Every structure is written in C-alpha cells, then in structure tokens.
C-alpha cells in the first residue's frame, strides 16, 4: 500500500516572543520546525504500516523553500520511506487552493496510492483547508478530524471522526484523503536507525519544470485569494490582578464578573 503524508515547515510558534511594549510578535527570532500537528499525520501512517498485512511504502511530501527538506528528513527519521519536496520560486505565495493544486499535480504523477494523510491544520496559516481542497480537486472522498484508524485494507478503511456532536464511525473506500487530530496517539520519536536512514536518503526535488506546470498555475499567480493587509493586534486586556485575602473574596469577584456578563 502506498501512503502519501503531507508535512509542512512552519515558524516555531512556541518560540514566538511578544514585544510587550507594542504587543507585536518579534518575528526575527523565529526558527522553522515541522508543523507539530503533522507529526500526528506521520504517526498515523506508521500505525497503518503496522496494522496492514502487506507491504507499505510511506512517502512524505512537502512544498516549501529548499530548507523544508529538513522536515522530510525528520519524517524519514521517524519511519517514513521516502521524501519529495516541491520547491521552486514560482511556488511561493501560494494560498490553500494553489498549494492543494500543486500537491495534487505531483500526486497525479506519482504511483497510485491508497491514502493521503494530512495534519488537522498548519500552525502558521491555521486553515486546515489543504486536505479537503486537495480531495475536492482530485475528486477523492475525505474524512476530516480522524481520531482513530480501526481497520484498513486495500479497498477500504474504517475510521473514527470527532465532531461537536460526538464520534462517527465511517467506512471510506480507498483511495481517499484523511486529516487527523492529536487523538490519533502521541507521535513516536525518531530512532537512531531512522536518523541514519534520513542522512543517507536523498530527497527528491520537483521544480516547476519537473512538475510540468506553468508559472500562472501555481504560487501567488495561481492563488485565488490575496492578502491585502497584515497587522498586529494589540493585546488589549485590562490585566487587572487582585490579591485576595481568602477564597470567599475571590469567589465573590468571580460571581460578580459572571453576573455582569449575564451568565449567572
């Protein structure tokens, strides 16, 4: 079974520092990491490899600058077999439609597959749109917010999905797309063997020409949305901090606060 896992490199938001005087983010200090939620997508593919009876090949795919090769190496060190990077200046500035389009073009050129797995959302764009948009463009079925894989074989997968109302059990014919949540299970750590493999595995690069698309189809030009303004919200809280003499006093503040807002 062939599985494609989509992983993105993002700024390390846990390292983001806020300049307290302006309430803005200090961008220059940010390093790039693998999207934390994509670790769960990788974990899912490795769980499937363990469950599935036959042979499984897992390919991690990323689109980004050459540096994004790092996240593919990380995927291989965790147990993925192969890494492909879509990288070209022309891909820059892609919105979710153009990102899905470019990744879709690549997938159509690769070997047939059973499953495409994405993270729930990327922590930079935070849209969670790439998986469903890709499924729409490739006319594949999709299950989002997947929390468990119950069964998988060559023709279908049985999955659990979490919604506001509860947990659905769904049977999806393959090939298909899933996006997974953290509930899938803690991602495993890279192994020493994996790290050595990552070091020795060459990441395959697809640029505009190799992908066989034109400038206009991808990146900023191929995008349907445009960012027209970026601004930094000021943290506008009162920051009222009260030292209380006893819990009773604290509770009276809380109750008053809730009453003022019509809760109690």
């Amino acid at each position, binding site marked *: 079974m062939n599985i494609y896992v989509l992983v993105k490199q993002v700024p390390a*938001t846990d390292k983001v520092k806020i300049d307290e005087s302006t309430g803005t983010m200090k961008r220059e200090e940010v390093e790039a990491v693998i999207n934390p939620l994509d670790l769960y997508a990788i974990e899912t593919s490795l769980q499937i490899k363990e469950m599935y009876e036959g042979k499984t090949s897992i390919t991690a795919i990323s689109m980004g600058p050459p540096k994004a090769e790092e996240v593919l190496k990380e995927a291989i060190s965790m147990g993925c077999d192969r890494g492909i990077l879509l990288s070209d200046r022309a891909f820059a500035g892609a919105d979710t439609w153009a990102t899905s389009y470019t990744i879709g073009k690549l997938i159509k050129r690769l070997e047939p597959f059973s499953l495409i797995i994405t993270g729930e959302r990327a922590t930079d764009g935070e849209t969670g749109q790439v998986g469903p948009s890709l499924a729409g463009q490739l006319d594949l079925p999709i299950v989002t917010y997947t929390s468990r894989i119950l069964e998988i074989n060559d023709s279908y997968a049985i999955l659990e999905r979490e919604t*506001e*109302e509860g947990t659905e059990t769904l049977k999806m014919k393959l090939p298909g797309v899933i996006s997974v949540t953290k509930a899938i299970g803690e991602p495993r750590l890279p192994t020493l063997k994996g790290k050595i493999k990552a070091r020795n595995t060459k990441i395959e690069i697809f640029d505009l020409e190799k992908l066989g698309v034109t400038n206009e189809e991808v990146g900023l030009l191929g995008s349907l949305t445009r960012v027209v303004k970026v601004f930094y919200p000021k943290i506008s809280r009162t*920051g009222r901090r009260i030292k209380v003499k006893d819990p009773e006093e604290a509770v009276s503040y809380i109750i008053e606060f809730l009453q003022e807002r019509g809760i109690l």
Partner: protein
Amino acid sequence: MSREVVILGEVRKGKIHSVTYELLAWGKDLSDKLKTRLSALILGYNLGDLEEVIYYGADKVYYLEHPRLDNFNPEVYAEVLVPFIKEIAPDIILAGATTTGRTIMPYLAGKLKAGLTADCTSLDIEEETGLLLQTRPAIGGNVLATIKTPSSKPQMATVRPKGKKPLERDTNRTGEIKIIKPSIDLNSRIERINFKPREEEVSLVDAEVVISGGKGLKDPRNISLLFDISKLIDSSAVGASRAIVDMGWIEYPHQVGLSGKTVNPKVYIAFGISGAVQHLAGMMNSESIIAINKDPEAPIFQVADLGIVGDALEILSTLKRKLEERKNNV
C-alpha cells in the same frame, strides 16, 4: 445579474443549529452593504423550523431535502451543492468554522475553483469594488490578515462560531421558502456505520463559559471539581491545558490550545494554568478571561480581564459551594 449573499446553515440532531442564526447576522451586514438579497441554504431531511431562518434575517431559504442529507457527508453534500451553487451563482458564501464548515467549504472550493478564507473574525465590503474583505487571525493569533478574493466567484469564507450574536428574532419578517428535492445518484464512497453522541451536554467550542484547569490543580482527583462547577453554570464546558491531558488527568477532547481546540466563549476561566503561548493560542480570543494562579508573575495574567492571585483548589471548592447555594435559593 442579481447578486446574492448566501449562508450555509447547519443542522444538528435534526434541528437547525444556532450557528445558522449567527451566520445570518454576519450575512445581513454584507447584504445590506451590497443592497442584495440574503439567502440561507439548508440541507436536511424532515426539518421543521424553516420559518425561524426567516425570522432571524433570511430573505430566502433554499431547503434542499433528501433522506441522504440527514447527516453530513462531504461527498453527498458536494454532489448536491456544486451544481446548485453554479446555478444560483452567489457573490458570497459563508459557513461556520465548525467541523462541518471546515470540511465542506474547502471541499467545495476545490471543486469550484473558488477562493476561500478560513476562520474569519471580521468581514466587510470594500466600497470601491464591492469585494469581500475577510480578516482572520494567523500564527496563533499573533497576526491579523485581511484577505480578498479578487477574481474568482463565489467568494467563500468560514467564520468563527460565537463571533457574532444572532439578530433579534422577528416573527413579522417575511421571506420565501423554496423547497428543492434534489436527486442523488452518487453511491458515496463514505458511509456512516456508527455514531456515538458526546456525553457532555455542551461541546467545548460551542460553550459560552469554559472552565479550564491546569497542572495547578495538583491531583487528578480534583478535576471532578471542574465538571461539578460546569454542571452548575448553563452552557458551560470543561477545558484543560496540555500538561494535564498528557498526564492522563483528563481526555484529549478537552485540550485547549495550539494542538487542541480553539475556543472563544464569553468567559474563559483558567484555574492553575501558567499561560504558555501554546495554551494562549487556543483561548486568547475569548470575549473575556478570568485567571486564577498562585504565582503573580504567571503569564496567563497578561491576557486576563480579572486575575486572581490565590489557591485554585480552595477557590474551586468555595465556588462550587456558593453556586450550589445559589441554585438551592432559587
């Protein structure tokens, strides 16, 4: 060509869900500015209440009815919606940033080749062009971006639930309800074989009050206090920091933050949570925040409207007692 603003309503447990009414309030602002009609698209089976959609602001309701639309399936929804959207060619389509909206909207946008902006917190119309201006937070709420869809139609956006209050319900409002019975040929590749409803009354993302706990609660046995208090406050739910989810004190669906849920209730109450950026990312946009922490330097206080320096456990048990007393007095 007549322009149209369309909202995609949501049906849960066979009833029109309140997100639908919030969406009408969002849509009304836009349709007023564009001087166009505001329509609601409702997919379901055997629904009553369609008048309600008019009372809350719709000029027209398209009710697409079929047994197979009884619960959400992205493939079946798309089979019905893609041709329908092409036919009515609306200017704008809005949906809630719920598990349904966040799935069907990008799936449709992929098929329609339409631009889509996720999780907007504010929407406006650009005067000169009549284009939709979509503002949304990114990078854990550290940045706001305004986004336009200049050349493709429809302009699609999802908006955060609870981001706006529904309009005043007005039973004098009139409008048209158009019932459409689509034929569904598709043998969906996705089939629902079981469903287990959530046990809690209110889901975390829908709650008006979130009562959250962190490592400051000291012992897994204290978590029940959060649930006890939640039972005493209407429309509330229990949240948690990752630290206590990782330690197994509470289940993952309760986790708030970067790798958990994003919530924006009227009041978020954090008991013994330090306020790491990853936690803040999931709750910073709450309407108001109360923080209780014994460390006066805890970063959570930077985002709090009411910060109480004190012992979370003592305050929790006292709060529980007071709320019980209040309940017994009425």
